[in-house]
């Protein structure tokens, strides 16, 4: 898959020079795709280049993570510490947010509260307009991808330039990110070379696909922008409530350019990104790099507190984004999804993600955590809501829980969100009727025995020793790739009864 439907839509109706998709009409922003997971997965699974790129990349990251996690003796204790800290944050989130607001304000920052994506975009667009700038530099931010900020800025005539290498690749190719950490994971380096040659102004026409050459091309392209931009936009990895310190964790040094060179810095954070005190960072700055990039220590960790006169941005705005998070917080189990530190370990170990990639999930949050976070943020709006398909995009194998650095019980949340999807059905669906019939058959031993006897008719299909297909709904989905043995001549309970009679 080269672009999603959203990406293609953007190509058709593009008004922005830098070509990110057009503004989502959904007030939630990019938390919903356009088609259910199985439909999108169908296309992704057939894309052999995508499959190879994803397989190679996830295998590599998995091995790196396993090696650096394995060398930490107290990894399990660290995970539990992360889990407890996050649970504590959620238990008193309103109080911590007000504390953060007070401490950021005391240090010269301005705090804005945004109910949803549209409101957040409006706040940021107005702030940029007030500076008179028509260009901003951005360091990777999931929150602004969630809100569709680049499109909103584009509509206001403001060009937003993504400065992380992978985000730049995605932006230049009119694509959408497919992974938290490596948004262009679905691309290999020869595809990236082609994108640069096609889209990057002034690029060396002899560019090769050597990683260093590609990085240097991006560097030259970005450096000019860093020096001229008057406004920087960032996300947040952690916000310290008691000191008002914001932290951004990145690997390329572009973050520090965006965070220090412009006059104005606008930072957008989901309200869950808070930690109570500075010392709590100790836990997360150990958990995050090992879980995400497979590194012992993060390369570039920036922290800043409000405004420092004469040094760095002289205006700092912090936009606190709710966009459905209050709804998630209201669910005693479901709020665990807000513990996520966006490390992407669950994506990298997920056998479904590895085969379909991130675009199949529609939402900007893909993979196992996305499958439980997106439907909670948007709510499930009836049986046809594409986000109702996300909790089913898992075999419940549990690899995500084992990899999660803050022990989010994703398998349990998947089941819980499946229940939410069923509850949103309204009128009974074909699946509802089938499940009710099956449950009724299992409800009493008499009926179950009757069902077993009826199943023996299936032996008629299996006279060759295997069944290759049977009529009926759902059967084609199984028999497309798998046989079934014929039902046995004697069920277990019949054998048991015969044996009891004998003895």
């Amino acid at each position, binding site marked *: 898959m080269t672009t999603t439907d959203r990406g293609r839509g953007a190509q058709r109706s593009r008004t922005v020079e830098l070509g990110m998709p057009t503004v989502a009409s959904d007030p939630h922003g990019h938390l919903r795709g356009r088609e259910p997971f199985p439909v999108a997965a*169908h296309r992704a699974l057939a894309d052999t280049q995508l499959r190879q790129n994803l397989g190679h990349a996830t295998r590599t990251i998995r091995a790196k993570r396993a090696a650096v996690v394995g060398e930490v003796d107290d990894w399990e204790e660290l995970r539990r510490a992360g889990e407890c800290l996050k649970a504590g944050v959620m238990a008193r989130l309103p109080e911590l947010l007000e504390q953060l607001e007070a401490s950021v304000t005391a240090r010269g920052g301005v705090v804005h509260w945004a109910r949803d994506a549209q409101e957040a975009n409006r706040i940021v667009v107005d702030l940029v307009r007030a500076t008179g700038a028509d260009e901003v530099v951005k360091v990777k931010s999931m929150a602004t991808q969630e809100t569709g900020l680049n499109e909103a800025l584009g509509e206001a005539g403001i060009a937003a330039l993504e400065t992380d290498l992978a985000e730049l690749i995605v932006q230049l190719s009119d694509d959408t990110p497919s992974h938290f950490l490596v948004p262009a994971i679905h691309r290999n380096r020869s595809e990236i070379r082609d994108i640069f040659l096609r889209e990057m102004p002034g690029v060396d026409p002899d560019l090769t696909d050597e990683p260093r050459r590609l990085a240097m091309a991006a560097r030259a392209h970005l450096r000019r922008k860093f020096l001229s931009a008057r406004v920087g936009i960032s996300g947040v990895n952690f916000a310290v409530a008691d000191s008002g310190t914001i932290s951004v964790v990145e690997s390329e040094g572009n973050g520090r350019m965006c965070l220090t060179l412009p006059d104005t810095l606008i930072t957008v954070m989901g309200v869950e990104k808070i930690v109570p005190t500075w010392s709590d960072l100790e836990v997360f700055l150990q958990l995050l790099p090992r879980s995400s990039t497979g590194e012992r220590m993060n390369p570039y960790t920036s922290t800043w507190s409000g405004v420092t006169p004469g040094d760095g941005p002289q205006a700092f705005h912090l936009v606190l984004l709710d966009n459905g998070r209050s709804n998630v917080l209201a669910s005693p189990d479901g709020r665990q999804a807000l513990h996520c530190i966006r490390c992407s370990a669950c994506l990298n170990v997920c056998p*479904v993600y590895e*085969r379909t990639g991130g675009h199949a999930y529609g939402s900007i949050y893909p993979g196992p955590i996305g499958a439980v976070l997106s439907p909670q943020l948007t709510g499930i709006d009836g049986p046809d809501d594409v986000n109702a398909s996300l909790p089913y995009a898992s075999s419940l194998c549990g690899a995500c829980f084992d990899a999660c650095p803050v022990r989010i019980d994703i398998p349990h949340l998947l089941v819980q969100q*499946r229940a939410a*999807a069923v509850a949103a059905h309204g009128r009974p669906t074909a699946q509802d009727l089938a499940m009710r019939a099956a449950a009724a058959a299992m409800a009493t031993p008499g009926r179950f025995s009757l069902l077993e006897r009826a199943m023996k008719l299936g032996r008629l299909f299996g006279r060759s020793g295997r069944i290759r297909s049977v009529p009926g709904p759902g059967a084609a989905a199984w028999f497309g790739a798998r046989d079934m043995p014929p039902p046995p001549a004697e069920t277990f309970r019949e054998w048991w009864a015969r044996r009891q009679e004998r003895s």
Partner: protein
Amino acid sequence: MRIALVATCLGDAMFPQAPRATVELLERLGHEVVFPADQTCCGQMYVNTGYLDLALPLVRHHVDVFSGAADVVVAPSGSCVGCVRHQHAMVARRGGDEELARAAEDLAARTYELSELLVDVLGVTDVGAYYPHRVIYHPTCHSLRMLRVGDKPLRLLREVRGLTLTELPDAEVCCGFGGTFAVKNAETSTAMLADKMANVLSTHAEVCTAGDTSCLMHIGGGLSRLRSGVRTVHLAEILASTEQGVTA
């Protein structure tokens, strides 16, 4: 020891070899097995598809049938035991039945997957089995990550006489079954199955074994479709086999 058997609905109706082998194995080891005939299904499929309300009566029925049946309960299925241990009380609480939830927790604490029962409760790894075949073991997801059975099945297999145990590459990766996932996301499931089968075939093993009938139905269904010549056999069947054969 008196042990109550959960045959599992799939084992009872479609793959009776697995519960039969469980009975024969445990009796051979000198234990008494009872089969409460009123049992139906643990409700796992309903829970995992999001029908927790439909699962509630099945949980109640399971708890009613097994609570007084014996001191210890066994099922030759990691995922059914996983459901009993990690989901039954949750389903009961969600249905507002705290009394049932407590009874389910009590029963869950006495319910074991076969390899857990043998190694942890009965303290045996050499069950006296004989199985002269080249075997690979697929550690099913729920045995591995829900029950944490660890290497117990492998310890049992290593003691089986005549058996050559070969390592399955990427063994801990899901086979793609996932209950209704195999039907609702059939293509993704098939892509996962394809990789599992490639790994199985790379070992040149004769037999792929596991502790869960449903995963074996999936892997076996794929291997049969390919006419691969590799068969799937439940762990219980291997452990029940002796030089005299299986006497079922």
